[in-house]
């Protein structure tokens, strides 16, 4: 591992300056659960790590009438131990609760999960289906990018040299909505998802019909995939096995997995269909309260 320096700025501007200075030989350090593994494996050669955990904007967590704001460095446990977030954003809680084990969740967060941009990132599908937006700071100021557009390839994101994720903004969910995320793994914990599915549904007042839905898939493409056609297929449909199965089949079509040491194409496609059906049902249950 290339020996690197440790710096811990206390403002966004300082952090951005450091990242600009070092280019791709410096990385922001949040939980460290991906960064240190990659540095040790010589995937990255770093001259510096920039610890962002002393920058207030990146460590803030707030939920109010406008929505949920998650600082880039906020750890998973802070999110799932927050009773308000647990009630309003159950799909996000699902993702936070299954990244690694308890030790990992004490450190790892959704910001790092998003920036790591693994196709299997368990935190990402829920953010996508909730319509979350990434707030980015750079030398030229700040900009916003939809989480659904954030990952551009395995380990690649829209972040330019010198840019830093500041926070993830999640809009307030609609009334009569619910969300859920699950993944398939060979054991019961500690694995990378073979396939993951996040679903958000909005029902009408009677709870018997879908108003809209979003479905996002993990581990079945070079990035997490927003299965737009599958989600849209539920709009206006009654909540029944037929419409759910049709959506699940469309989700399966949206998946373009590979065969690797974690699973085969056939297995992953089948899992997408099965898990989509299950997550739509669970999101509906949560929407109905």
């Amino acid at each position: 591992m290339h020996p690197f320096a440790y710096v811990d700025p206390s403002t966004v501007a300082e952090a951005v300056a450091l990242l600009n200075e070092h280019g791709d030989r410096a990385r922001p350090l949040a939980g460290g659960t991906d960064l240190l593994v990659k540095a040790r494996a010589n995937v990255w050669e770093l001259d510096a790590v920039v610890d962002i955990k002393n920058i207030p904007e990146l460590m803030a967590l707030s939920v109010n009438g406008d929505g949920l704001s998650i600082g880039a460095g906020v750890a998973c446990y802070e999110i799932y131990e927050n009773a308000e977030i647990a009630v309003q954003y159950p799909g996000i809680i699902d993702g936070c609760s299954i990244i690694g084990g308890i030790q990992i969740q004490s450190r790892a967060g959704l910001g790092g999960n998003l920036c790591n941009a693994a196709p299997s990132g368990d935190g990402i599908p829920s953010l996508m289906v909730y319509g979350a937006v990434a707030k980015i700071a750079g030398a030229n100021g700040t900009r916003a990018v939809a989480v659904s557009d954030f990952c551009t390839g395995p380990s690649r994101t829209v972040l330019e040299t010198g840019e830093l994720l500041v926070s993830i903004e999640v809009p307030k969910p609609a009334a009569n909505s619910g969300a859920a995320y699950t993944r398939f793994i060979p054991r019961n914990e500690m694995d990378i998802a073979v396939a993951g599915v996040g679903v958000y549904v909005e029902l009408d007042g009677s709870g018997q019909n879908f108003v809209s839905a979003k479905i996002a898939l993990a581990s079945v493409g070079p990035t997490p995939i927003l299965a737009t056609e599958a989600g849209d297929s539920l709009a206006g449909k009654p909540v029944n096995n037929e419409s759910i199965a049709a959506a699940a089949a469309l989700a399966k079509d949206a998946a373009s997995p590979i065969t690797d040491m974690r699973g085969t194409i056939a297995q992953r496609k089948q899992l997408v269909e099965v898990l989509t059906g299950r997550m739509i049902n669970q999101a509906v249950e949560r929407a109905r309260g």
Partner: protein
Amino acid sequence: MTTNSTSPSKVHVTTTINGQKHELLVPGYMSLLDTLRELIGLTGTKEGCLDGNCGACTVTIDGRIVDSCLVLGAEVNGKNVETIEGMATPEGLHPLQQAFLEEAALQCGICTPGFLVAAKGLLDNEPSPSEGRIRHWLAGNLCRCTGYDKIVRAVQKASS
């Protein structure tokens, strides 16, 4: 820009470990695990995989259990770290340590410090967890010798 560097590569760290204040010069790239084992000489926390998958290096930082192989020594500046060496007191063993001995919850013992620190992290907040909760909490700690049966029983014994 505030910086803790006193030299290009070492960081001045003030931290509390098992209730004792330490002032250290830590290379920026050195893990908390190596800081404990190599710099300070506390070898009770063990190395198993160095990538956060076995839990043998578990310590607590400000009351939360973490894999110390994935934390930098520099990151515990101003924080409270607890390791296995801080679990017993001059008055005696922690109930978990006693329970592990009575229930024979260790065979080779290399995973034991990690399990004890992790289990304490659970019981400190949830004094009477169910078997399922115990298993879920400890899923980040690998044991290859025991099959976990006696570890789970020991945690149950130590819980109220």
